[in-house]
């Protein structure tokens, strides 16, 4: 194993872990307050990517406008899902999960109808990249994904830690009933959590539009990865999701580089099964109260 290959793979893994963390953290935010696992999360990511494509390519607008619009649009879809679907299902998590499968099918079909199934590429947003020593390089477009993801996650941490709304969110995630007794509005908090979670998927999709082909089924692989990440990290744990995203991205990238993608998928799924069997609460999770 050459050192250059090793370094290059490590950089690729860092990049993969950054956007995976965004998607997984969004999923965990929604789960924390609603106790619903949003199967349509990958499609929110896809919607973010297509929004950027529509703005940047179809309307010839600036890339950043596309990103901003993606965040707003995807967050709006999240709010509609919360109000129309998740709220009536608050006592029935399996019902919420099944409803989100319905949303997944609708968003996918609409994307096929509007954009077709052919994969689309964005013209280069920034050219070039950083080169480290011999042959190890990282495109600026990937650097941007890493930097923005890290910044967003830090901002989210500060928000949850130091603002009243952030406290309310964490309180609801810990114990919704007790939070309600303290005068915290569950509905409002749920709106914020789902809106934020969806917005994170939207940002991730918008950023990744630079780096991956944009197609209606792009949400599938990311949602499977995100499930592996939230299970390994401990469902409901934000720190766990970030750490597990790093762990999974490294395993996945290295196995893909040294064998092939199918083997990497199998290894990832086996990793999740192992955690489910040995320690269902994950690396950072706490036991669910009955």
């Amino acid at each position: 194993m050459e050192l250059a290959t090793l370094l290059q793979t490590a950089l690729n893994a860092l990049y993969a872990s950054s956007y995976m963390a965004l998607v997984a953290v969004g999923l965990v935010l929604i789960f924390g307050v609603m106790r619903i696992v949003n199967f349509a999360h990958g499609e929110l990511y896809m919607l973010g990517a297509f929004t950027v494509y529509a703005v940047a390519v179809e309307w010839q607008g600036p890339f950043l406008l596309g990103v901003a619009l993606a965040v707003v649009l995807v967050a709006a879809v999240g709010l509609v899902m919360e109000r129309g679907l998740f709220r009536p299902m608050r006592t029935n998590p399996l019902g919420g999960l099944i409803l989100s499968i319905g949303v997944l099918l609708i968003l996918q079909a609409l994307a096929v109808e509007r954009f077709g199934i052919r994969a689309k590429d964005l013209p280069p947003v920034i050219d070039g990249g950083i080169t480290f020593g011999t042959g190890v390089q990282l495109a600026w477009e990937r650097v941007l994904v890493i930097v923005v993801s890290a910044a967003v996650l830090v901002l989210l941490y500060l928000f949850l830690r130091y603002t009243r709304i952030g406290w309310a969110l964490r309180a609801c995630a810990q114990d919704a009933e007790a939070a309600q007794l303290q005068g915290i509005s569950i509905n409002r908090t749920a709106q914020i959590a789902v809106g934020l979670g969806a917005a994170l998927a939207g940002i991730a999709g918008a950023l990744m539009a630079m780096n991956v082909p944009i197609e209606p089924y792009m949400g599938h692989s990311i949602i499977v990865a995100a499930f592996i990440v939230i299970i390994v990290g401990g469902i409901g744990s934000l720190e766990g999701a970030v750490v597990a995203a790093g762990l999974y991205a490294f395993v996945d990238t290295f196995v893909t580089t040294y064998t092939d993608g199918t083997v990497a998928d199998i290894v990832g799924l086996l990793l999740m099964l192992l955690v489910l069997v040995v320690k269902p609460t994950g690396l950072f999770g706490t036991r669910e109260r009955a």
Partner: protein
Amino acid sequence: MATVAGSLERQAAGRGLSLVAAAGWIALAAGLLALPHLLSISQREVAVMLLVNVLLVASYRLITLTGEWSLGHVVTMGVGAYGSALLASLAGFPVVLAMLGGALIAGFVAWLLSFPLFRMKGFYFLIGSFAAAEVIRLCWKKFTVPFGGPKGLSQVPELPPLDLGALTGWLSLQLGEPGAGGHSGAYFLGLLPVHEDLVIRFSKPLFTANYYYFCLLVVAVSLWLLWRIERSRIGMTFHAIHWQDSLAASVGVNTRGYRTLALVVGSVFAGLAGALMAHGVGSVAPGRFDVTQMVYVLIWVIVGGTATFAGPIVGVVVLTVLNEVVLRELGIDALRPAVYGAILIVSVLFLPQGLEGLWRGRRNRPAKRRST
């Protein structure tokens, strides 16, 4: 007390309706027997797949009886399909035996998987069963020997022709023609087209009509068995575990054992459905058993309603007919999944008992399913 009164009432109503019910069953049987003669060739293939899917959802319901929702059922069906195809083509088993073998392999794999999976419940079981199933499916994709890789297996052996020569004498009576040796256009028992030499062929030109009858027989017998299982003491125990698992355990029911039993039996029938599909279509590929297919099974079952035996079957029949008749006519191919998604959402929000709950009415509605 209310439930006892309700069930007595239903029984009484059942006796009163028995003539109507019998007439209904006869009409249903006649309709099912006449069906292939009313359909085009491609519609017959849809009818065969519908029979396969009816068995698939009915077997899925047996598993959901104990309260666990698996995302691996379609892959279990695939295990039966691959197992049966390989037994027939590599090991040279006669096709009917290979089908039974495939079903048993599916049950065996489910038994093996029950050890890790039944350490989980609810969402964890759902996601764990997805992971385990996806690993199996990716292995089919990864290993070209013996699974054929991404393209899968083609030229899965067909059912061999059934030679009725030995039955000629008896058959001539049935056909109402003396010396039924050499006339074309005869129908066995008035239904199955029989060749000049009195052989029922299942190969392509006649595949769909005769294979349809074969599937109809297998599925009917399987449904009857599944129905008997659900009505037996074992089936009652499944219900008990779903509603009150700690109570059931406290009176000495081995809940884990019964959950495993439900999973294995359901998987055997799913495997049989897969075997019927493999030898009918003539090929098996990993793409046929991906999570999208599983989503459709969930939609059929949920839209139909899981509270009764008939619910999932109603769901798959109604949605397949809707898909083939209405949506195909409208010509909105790309939007078809969206229609399914909308139907799913509407039925979860507004019809929590499923379609089947519509005509069961308010009075007989069972207690609300405990949310998990």
